[in-house]
């Protein structure tokens, strides 16, 4: 098992590297195209279906500053796949360098339990949870903007802010009653 | 000669004729130019090929690049001809493309077919090696009797014989198919009345000349490993015709030469339109 480590490589100058993990490979390409539009810093995007990443890319893979798990809420598999990928991340990533993005949260076929499960997962790992609209270009752009903000901090490009600090402010919280059955 | 003499007799308008000839001459000149250019390219290609075969040093190649603008294209063309030659040689000595699949648990064999130097369809067989040889997947049409071939040739012990027989069947089939295609393309006056998927039966409607009864020509290819028919049969309202020496000759011509060529000859002989 090869863990992806946050500090095993040197950072590039004015460069931020983001890894998008999505089992369905639906949103990641669009999101990547929106992310590389950024001009202030060089953004490198790596796309993966799941973790672990293949060994042969190890050498020329830059240091990954932020790992984003994209979960399509209408698919149980999407959530399961993200959950399974988590164990290939070095614990160091959970100090503000992991983020969850969910899509299709408004779809009627989404069982509320699944959203709860994602929120619990994000909360237990102290990660932020971003809701994204994947159907419209505007939705993708705004999701990309939000991820960029986190990415810049995670890559150490924002003075006076660290990933750990930001994650303390943005991490997902779970309402205390989430486990109680309705109304009872 | 006869035909030419006849055509010379019919010269309607002298002036129009001159113009026509002039145009013809111009065209021929153009053609000469084209051929010259082509020839030069071929020459260069030849040079390239020889240098390639000698495994030339980089310097020489550099030199070539300066010589012509299209050198890169020429290089590629040279490489291509070299490869096709190699491939042809490979097939000539009876080679099949075989590669291992599934970590050595199976192989995939490609049987390429060609007719008159033209590569036609390639057929593939995926074969399991264990516990015994077994064809697991292929794209050979169902009318090629693959199953009986495996039994006849004993796939287990005589794999090579099996492949050769199969290749024979496939080459004959694609050859017949190609002949039929050529007949349809080249002989507009010949009507294909009937044919089948295996191309083992061909019924052609031949026009002897305008006003004369049509000839129905049936070609049967009972030997499925051959591109030539086993039986040729003519039918005509004029009962005498099939027995005439001309048509007797046509019959043997059709049996000995591929149908599109035979028809071409019959046309030049003036037996059909």
């Amino acid at each position: 098992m090869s863990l992806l480590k946050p500090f095993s490589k040197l950072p590039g100058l004015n460069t931020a590297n983001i890894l998008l993990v999505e089992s369905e490979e639906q949103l990641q390409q669009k999101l990547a195209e929106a992310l590389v539009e950024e001009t202030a810093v060089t953004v490198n995007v790596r796309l993966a279906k799941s973790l672990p990443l293949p060994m042969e890319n190890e050498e020329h893979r830059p240091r990954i500053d932020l790992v984003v798990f994209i979960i399509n809420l209408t698919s149980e598999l999407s959530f399961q796949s993200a959950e399974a990928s988590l164990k290939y991340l070095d614990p160091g990533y959970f100090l503000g360098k992991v983020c969850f993005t969910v899509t299709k949260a408004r779809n009627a076929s989404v069982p509320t339990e699944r959203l709860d499960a994602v929120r619990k997962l994000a909360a237990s790992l102290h990660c932020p949870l971003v809701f994204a609209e994947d159907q419209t270009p505007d939705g993708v752009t705004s999701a990309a903007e939000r991820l960029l903000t986190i990415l810049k901090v995670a890559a150490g490009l924002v003075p006076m802010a660290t990933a750990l600090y930001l994650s303390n402010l943005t991490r997902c919280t779970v309402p205390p009653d989430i486990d109680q059955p309705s109304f009872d | 000669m006869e035909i030419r003499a006849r055509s010379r007799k019919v010269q309607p308008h002298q002036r129009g004729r001159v113009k026509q000839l002039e145009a013809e001459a111009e065209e021929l000149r153009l053609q000469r130019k084209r051929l010259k250019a082509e020839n030069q390219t071929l020459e260069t290609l030849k040079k390239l090929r020889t240098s390639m075969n000698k495994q030339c040093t980089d310097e020489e190649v550099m030199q070539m690049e300066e010589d012509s603008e299209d050198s890169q294209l020429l290089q590629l063309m040279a490489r291509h001809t070299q490869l096709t030659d190699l491939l042809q040689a490979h097939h000539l000595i009876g080679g099949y493309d075989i590669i291992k699949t599934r970590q050595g648990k199976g192989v995939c064999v490609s049987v390429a077919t060609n007719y008159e130097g033209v590569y036609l369809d390639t057929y593939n067989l995926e074969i399991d090696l264990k516990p015994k040889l077994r064809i697991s997947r292929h794209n050979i049409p169902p009318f090629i009797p693959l199953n009986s071939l495996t039994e006849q040739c004993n796939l287990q012990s005589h794999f090579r014989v099996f492949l050769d027989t199969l290749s024979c069947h496939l080459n004959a089939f694609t050859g017949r198919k190609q002949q039929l295609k050529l007949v349809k393309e080249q002989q507009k006056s010949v009507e294909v009345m009937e044919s089948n998927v295996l191309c083992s039966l061909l019924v052609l409607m031949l026009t002897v000349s305008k006003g004369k009864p049509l000839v129905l020509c049936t070609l049967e290819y009972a030997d499925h490993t051959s591109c030539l028919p086993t039986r040729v049969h003519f039918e005509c309202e004029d009962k005498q015709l099939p027995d005439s020496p001309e048509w007797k000759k046509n019959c043997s011509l059709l049996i000995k030469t591929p149908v599109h060529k035979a028809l071409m000859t019959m046309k030049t002989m003036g037996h059909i339109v």
Partner: protein
Amino acid sequence: RSCLGLTPALTARRLSKSRKAPKSHYITVRQRQPLLMFFSHEKVNPEHLALLLKSEWKLSYVTPLYQFRHTQLKSYSRQLSAFIAAEKQQGFAVEVDGSQSNFRVSFSVVQGMTETEDDAETVLIQVRAGFLRPISEAQRSVWSGWLTCVNGNSDYLCSLPKDFICLPLFGSSGSEVLTTLVQSWFQKMFDCCFGPLEMNNTCLQWLAALWTNCHPESSIQHLKMIWTLPVVPPLQITYTVNPKDAWKLWSSVRKDPCEENKEEEGVSIDIEDVMRFMQGLKSHFYRHFRLDLSAGCLKQVSTALGSATFSGRVKISNSQYILSTLTLLTECALFKMPV
């Protein structure tokens, strides 16, 4: 929906994690043991019951009705008839089969379709088309619908202001135009809102399990589930399980019944059981086709006892289990209520 709200009852809107196993309620004829005190109903009019079982219903949710009185159904009948007639005059295309017809609406109470004291009685609405003559044999039922609340969450029901009646589940069958008309009349009269009630994966899985659980008492004939997988073109997978085998699998994933306290409340079913049941079915499928059904969406569940689709079409074919099915659906509808 608020994530920060701290009033537990109002933020946690999710299906119960466990529910009582459906018991057969012979709600029409058989008299029941008086010791089951909270089954207040005694008899449901067999005609009404037959109507409920006859058709497939398109479900909607309805927010609580303001000043709805079960005592004024006669007057509602007149008013809705008049409303439809008025709309028709305004050119609303309510022609049925192209015939010139009058619409006669009748409201009625379906007695006994409740489980707790807080449940409001079910209301049945029928629209008949007559040929000008006011009362005639030729009157055909062209539309029917009902509003119900079975086993509604008592906390929620009690928290409503006094003038509100909560009948959150609305089923309709018949012309879409009439459905829209009836809904708009309700909106005007009782200041409520209607919305489509889709059934998500969990809800459909619950139904599959609940129906399968009934098998020993009343055969389910088959358990049929339809999934769609998100590929182009969409792939539909119909999974039909032999009833005996479905029951065997279901009983194997149930927790050891010894642990349960078998009281008069009956055996309870846990969401975990349902999930294990579905997982079992999916893994059997995966073993054969190496294709993960979790990637898809459950669209339909059906057995001889009833069928339900994702888009909110439900058919209940067996009167014995109508209440447990409606309980689940009421719960689904209640999630859509404003809090």
